[in-house]
């Protein structure tokens, strides 16, 4: 078979590059995702007749003179400094037909590199609707390179484009090019456009009307608040039924394994270690899919840049920009999709600062832990009106998380992540509506990548945890109840050894070894705290029966005469949970998004320290 053809897709943000990439590659062939704080690009393979085409989708950029690592990828790939020295055979330059005045100067820079280049004009339908008319034949003659007009989201012109891709050898090079400096390139572009424009385009009336409302100083804020409400609602409630369904399936599968296979350690490992462990990740899939569908829709439609404009002032105080807000907000549901959403932040420093604080946002996994501790130790007294002390405590914990996230972001941006920040500029593209197909493809890709990467870390982590809790083996006499047998097993497990070993560390916070075992358990995922504690205290009721379990925690133990937990240690534990990074999925996703273990390790370090100090202060004040 013939050698594959390597082509690179280059263009500015909002030029319709992603839509075009999706239209060309579809789900056929392999699509990889090459992420990181610095690098984010995708590659797709497809066939034209018998020729294999490898298409790299490079980060959208306004220039080849990179001011961020992300943008540097484009010029590196074009020069063959990446991908093991493969220089692309040809460049497909994507330009929005309605903003050629800005994109042609960048094309001049790409042409200077000297690779065969094809110009794809997107949004040609919008150009017509807005009254613009270009002489494409003349433009082709002036530029000296072939041009294909497409409407990506309707699939028009895609087949024509596909057929021309293997023909890169005939993408002739232009005869005349301007000097490389910016002024000359813009003058060159202006001169060409003057010759080929038959009728200039007017502003999009729909966009003008929508912006009158959405950017209005008062109405705009109200719409923005509604947008936030919708976002929260979607993540908290709409995803919940699907999440319950998934978690039900996982429990069902684990129970089925336990019932079907002979009782043995292997069966136990498969059910409790593997299936429930991986299930903890799969449960997030509906939430992540919904979140990405929403984020992609708002990005592609153009509302995200309007929302960033509306909140830029507030985020500016923390040294962040408007787009960081979206990630922090998503993290209130779950830090995993929130951290993945930081990809829309162009500045690597701002992106990193957002990742560093995102786990402080009160994610839904903390709720069961807070709920148990509050109902056990906070009196249900009325404070004023309908507000009770319990409700206010919960609200306080939620607010504390958000305030801490923004404060720590401000600290990082003024300290470690200080330095010349990127100039803040944001294009406000005309409102456009993405096709359903393109939303579905985007969500599908994100979810597969998440499952593959976070899933593998969680799998390893939960097997290790299962081992720690179940070894060395304790053979219980046949006449004790399963809960007591389990308790005895845990008491002599490696996890208990770790719990005892941690006693000097957590003694100032009032935690005994049993709470420490709970912490070891919750390291895989916060919500495991409750079930691990239930095992440690041999609680025999249902996991979800909060009242019974709360009683067990706060009432004196008949054996020792002491309650397992005191008010002060409960306060310390809640504060510890506000700050500690107890979630393997989050650690895995941080590793994935920053492309190194350095940042997840740093975060575990500083967040544990902050958590310990906060817990200690809480313990001192409460006792």
């Amino acid at each position, binding site marked *: 078979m013939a050698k594959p053809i390597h082509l690179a897709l280059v263009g500015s943000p909002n030029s319709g590059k992603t839509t075009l990439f999706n239209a060309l590659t579809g789900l056929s062939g392999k699509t990889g995702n090459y992420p990181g704080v610095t690098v984010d690009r995708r590659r797709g393979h497809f066939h034209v007749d018998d020729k294999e085409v490898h298409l790299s989708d490079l980060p959208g950029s*306004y*220039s080849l*003179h990179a*001011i961020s690592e992300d943008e540097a990828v484009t010029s590196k790939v074009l020069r063959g400094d990446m991908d093991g020295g493969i220089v692309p055979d040809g460049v497909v330059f994507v330009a929005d037909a*309605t*903003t*050629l*005045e*800005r994109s042609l*100067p*960048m094309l001049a820079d790409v042409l200077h590199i000297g690779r065969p280049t094809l110009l794809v004009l997107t949004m040609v339908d919008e150009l017509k609707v807005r009254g613009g008319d270009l002489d494409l034949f003349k433009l082709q003659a002036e530029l000296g390179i072939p041009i294909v007009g497409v409407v990506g989201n309707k699939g028009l012109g895609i087949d024509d484009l596909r057929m021309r891709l293997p023909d890169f050898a005939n993408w002739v090079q232009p005869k005349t090019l301007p000097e490389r400096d*910016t*002024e000359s390139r*813009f*003058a060159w572009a202006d001169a060409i456009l003057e010759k080929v424009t038959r009728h200039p*385009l007017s502003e999009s009336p729909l966009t003008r009307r929508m912006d009158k409302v959405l*950017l209005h*100083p008062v109405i705009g804020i109200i719409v923005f608040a509604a947008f936030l409400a919708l976002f929260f609602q979607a993540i908290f409630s709409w995803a919940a039924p699907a999440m319950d369904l998934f978690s039900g399936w996982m429990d069902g599968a684990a129970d089925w394994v336990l019932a079907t296979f002979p009782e043995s350690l292997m069966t136990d490992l498969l059910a409790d270690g593997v299936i429930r462990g991986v299930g903890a990740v799969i449960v997030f899939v509906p939430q992540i899919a919904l979140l990405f569908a929403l984020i992609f829709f708002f990005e592609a439609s153009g509302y995200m*840049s309007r929302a*960033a*404009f*509306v909140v*830029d*002032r507030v985020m*500016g105080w923390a040294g962040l920009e408007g787009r960081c807000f979206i990630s922090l907000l998503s993290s209130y549901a779950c830090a995993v999709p929130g951290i993945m959403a930081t990809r829309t932040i162009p500045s690597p420093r701002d992106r990193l600062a957002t990742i560093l604080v995102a786990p402080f946002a009160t994610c839904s996994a903390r709720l069961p832990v807070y709920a148990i501790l509050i109902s056990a130790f906070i009196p249900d007294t009325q404070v004023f009106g309908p507000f009770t002390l319990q409700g206010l405590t919960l609200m306080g914990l939620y607010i504390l998380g958000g305030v801490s996230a923004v404060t720590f972001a401000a600290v990082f941006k003024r300290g470690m992540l200080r330095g*010349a920040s*990127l*100039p*803040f*500029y*944001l*294009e*406000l*593209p005309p409102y456009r509506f993405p096709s359903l197909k393109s939303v579905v493809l985007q969500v599908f890709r994100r979810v597969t990548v998440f499952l593959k990467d976070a899933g593998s870390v969680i799998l390893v982590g939960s097997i290790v945890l299962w081992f720690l809790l179940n070894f060395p083996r304790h053979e219980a006499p046949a006449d004790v109840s399963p809960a007591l047998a389990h308790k005895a097993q845990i008491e002599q497990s490696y996890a208990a050894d770790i719990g005892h070993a941690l006693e000097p560390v957590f003694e100032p916070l009032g935690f005994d070894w049993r709470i420490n075992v709970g912490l070891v358990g919750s390291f895989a995922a916060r919500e495991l705290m409750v079930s691990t504690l239930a095992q440690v205290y041999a609680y025999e009721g249902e996991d979800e029966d909060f009242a019974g379990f709360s009683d067990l925690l706060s009432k004196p133990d008949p054996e020792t005469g002491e309650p397992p937990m005191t008010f002060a240690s409960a306060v310390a534990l809640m504060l510890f949970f506000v700050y500690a990074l107890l979630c393997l999925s989050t650690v895995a996703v941080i590793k994935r998004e920053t492309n190194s273990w350095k940042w997840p390790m740093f975060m575990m370090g500083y967040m544990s320290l902050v958590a310990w100090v906060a817990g200690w202060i809480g313990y001192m004040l409460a006792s």
Partner: protein
Amino acid sequence: MNPLPDVLTIADLPRVLVGKVLSVEGNGKFSERLRELGFCCGTEVRFERQAPMGGPIIVSLRGYRLCLRISEAKQIRIEGMAGLGGIG
């Protein structure tokens, strides 16, 4: 209202409404980026709107619209266009 300063920048655009770019201050990569966004000598820039309380400003140029913070806007020198309230 204060009189307009002698040297106008995009930050003054809310009062001047339309201006022509004279130059972008500085030689760093960031100034270069502003030029590459289309703030070249002679480019016409039109005021669109500003967020309340000194927030970012939206301008239109070269057939598209861009949102800038005031600190970036101050780097771009303009001249007002005659007959539109500027000081030509």
